[in-house]
């Protein structure tokens, strides 16, 4: 519903001149605010208010119908004493630690390969992007078939390669998470490849020419030119990936539904179960608050590190 208005602050008004009165600048500010108002209103009503309300709910007990009851820190006490929460937290971190670096490497690699002048490069770029626009449910179902322990092509390939006991993938507690991570990397790398490709296009060719004249080899050119100039893009991709992996929900629900047992249960799924399915909205809000704080801390940390490197 919100109209996304670009918010440049009063481009028409002249900021020059010593005679600029306070009224003039206040007017400019008001106009500026008015530009972002529609967007902000939508954001405030549909996102900010519910988020703040959810934080409040974390300290209450609420079944979504009867009046909420203030219970202080009870929800948090319950959460920290419950091993399902810790398992979900550990699984979320496990997923993130697997998913973020692998997707980053694969998408960067793909972007580097597809940034050259190759025959049919457009076809390969489309092919790499294809998984991202495919319906997630279809992706999960197909990968489940590929990962079938007895009849799936993945294990048939492994057996022909001489692996005696191929993993049970989604039917094994140890291998279910790697299976989900592989699927998610395959699905997401096309999207981040596009971001990296856009970043690669902005690197001036002169840098490479100069380096070549100085006798730098391909690896040196990559290490000293491509990577540093790509840093803003890498940073963006890293943040997006991290936030995305902490919020992972749909892929897990369709592929394993948290199983076997609790082997792939993640936090957002636990929030959904406790809140929407079990009707314990206070407890679910408390878990959301913890998830929010974790994502916030990790993102702030990444920003700090990014800033320090830029200096």
């Amino acid at each position, binding site marked *: *519903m919100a109209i996304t208005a670009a918010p440049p602050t009063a481009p*028409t008004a002249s900021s020059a001149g010593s005679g600029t009165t306070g009224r003039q600048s206040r007017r400019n500010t*008001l*106009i500026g605010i*008015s530009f972002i*108002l*529609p967007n902000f*209103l*939508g954001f405030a*009503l549909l996102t900010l208010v519910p988020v703040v309300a959810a934080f409040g709910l974390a300290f209450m007990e609420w*079944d*979504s*119908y*009867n009046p909420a009851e203030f219970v202080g820190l009870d929800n948090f006490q319950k959460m920290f004493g*419950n*091993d*399902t929460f810790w398992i979900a937290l550990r699984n979320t971190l496990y997923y993130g630690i697997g998913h973020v670096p692998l997707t980053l490497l694969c998408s960067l690699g793909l972007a580097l390969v597809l940034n050259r002048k190759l025959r049919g490069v457009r076809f390969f770029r489309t092919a790499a992007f294809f998984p991202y626009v495919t319906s997630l449910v279809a992706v999960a*179902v197909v990968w*489940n*078939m590929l*990962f*079938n*322990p*007895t*009849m799936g092509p993945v294990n048939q390939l492994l057996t022909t390669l001489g692996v005696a006991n191929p993993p*049970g*993938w*989604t*039917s*094994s*507690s140890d291998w279910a998470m790697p299976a989900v991570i592989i699927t998610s990397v395959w699905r997401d790398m096309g999207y981040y490849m596009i971001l990296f490709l856009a970043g690669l296009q902005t690197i001036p060719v002169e840098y490479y020419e100069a380096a070549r004249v100085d006798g730098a080899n391909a690896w040196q050119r990559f290490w000293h030119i491509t990577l540093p100039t790509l840093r803003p893009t890498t940073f963006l991709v890293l943040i997006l990936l991290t936030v995305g992996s902490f919020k992972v929900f749909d892929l897990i629900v369709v592929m394993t539904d*948290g*199983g*076997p*047992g*609790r082997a792939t249960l993640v936090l957002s799924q636990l929030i959904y*179960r406790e809140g*929407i*399915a*079990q*009707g314990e909205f206070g407890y679910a809000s408390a878990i959301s608050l913890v998830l929010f704080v974790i994502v916030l801390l990790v993102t702030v940390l990444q920003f700090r590190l990014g800033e320090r490197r830029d200096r």
Partner: protein
Amino acid sequence: MNRKALAAIGAAAALSLTLAACGSGSGNAPDDEATESGPVDLSVAVWSMDQTPEFQALFDAFEAEYPDITITPVDILADDYPEKVTTMLAGGDTTDVLTMKTLTDYSRWAGRGQLEDVTDLVTDYPDGKLAGTDGYDQDGKFFAVPYRQDFWVLYYNKALFDAAGLDYPDHVTWDEYADLAQKLTGTDAAGQKVYGTYNHVWRSVTQAIAQAQNDGDLLSGDYGFLTDQYDLNVGLQKDGYALDYSTAKTQQVSYRTMFETQATAMMPMGTWYISGILQAKKDAKSTVEWGIAPMPQVDDGDTTTTFGGPTAFAVNKAAKNKDAAKKFLAFAASLKGAEAISAIGVVPALQSDDVTAAYFALEGMPTDDLSKEAFAPDDVALEMAPSDITADVDVILNEEHDLIMVGEKSVDDGIAAMESRVKQDVLD
């Protein structure tokens, strides 16, 4: 220009605020009760109507009986039904009639005071006995009226039994059942693998039947009574007499496909599937020659104990047309409602000899005595007693069931984990 823009934005903001106010305001104030004299538009929340023909059958019969009431179904995807209705109710939805898909959902909504008291509708029905009302008893009050009552039977493929030269599974024990499963496993003429039996992935296939036949209690935190049934079902898949759980789960195998393509000779399943087979045969999608037998028992004998669950309608407390909604509940539980749904192979909650006779007179129904006997079990236990801990226990039992059946945990370890987790996380 700037001023105009400001004015426009102000107007837009005001408008969006009003809209938001409308959106949140309509929830808690149900419209004034519609007068029941004129035509009434009754809304009923149901799931996956195209796959659940009983709803349309009931609606048609009801509209014929009450010409001034029109029914507007609110169709919800079956898998999302409980969550969707929870969300609707939280938002102050005014849908008149809500279908109670499971007892767990019922006890949750009734416990929150979201359903209308309909105790007066549960008491007396002149044409027969209304089965399955016990599950809806909340301290002597009822907030829903059952209209169908399903229970578990053993489906079997007559042609495969004949080909193997075996007698039909007439009142068998679990040991005899395992023996039959072994003998029936093989390949058919086309080279397709045929399993002796098929256990669907639900935990009730093992747990609810063990509870019913061993006087267990799935809410108690003591699960020793599950051991034998788990040993049986794990053994069947280990020996290859039943499709293994991992394949069934990861490939999302449909139990209907297993039975209708004759990939299994036996299958324990609920009576709701009868209407499914009738439809598949009618549409010429399957050629299976089928019958039903009583569920296998622990001990030899003619008493049949099985488990099952009722399905009911309830009136939303925020309903717009409460009188018409109550009329619908009473109709669905009455003889006319029972006739309407039994005509398509659904087992009504209202039980009488007439209803059973009409049921077996349906085209395509097996007519042998064994099937009729299977239809009248001596004891139908609840799948799981409704209570405020049912949902939490359910999650734990599901997770550990999963681990036992994929072979991650031994039967004993899995049961020990169920006990310690339920005691620690739920009962304490």
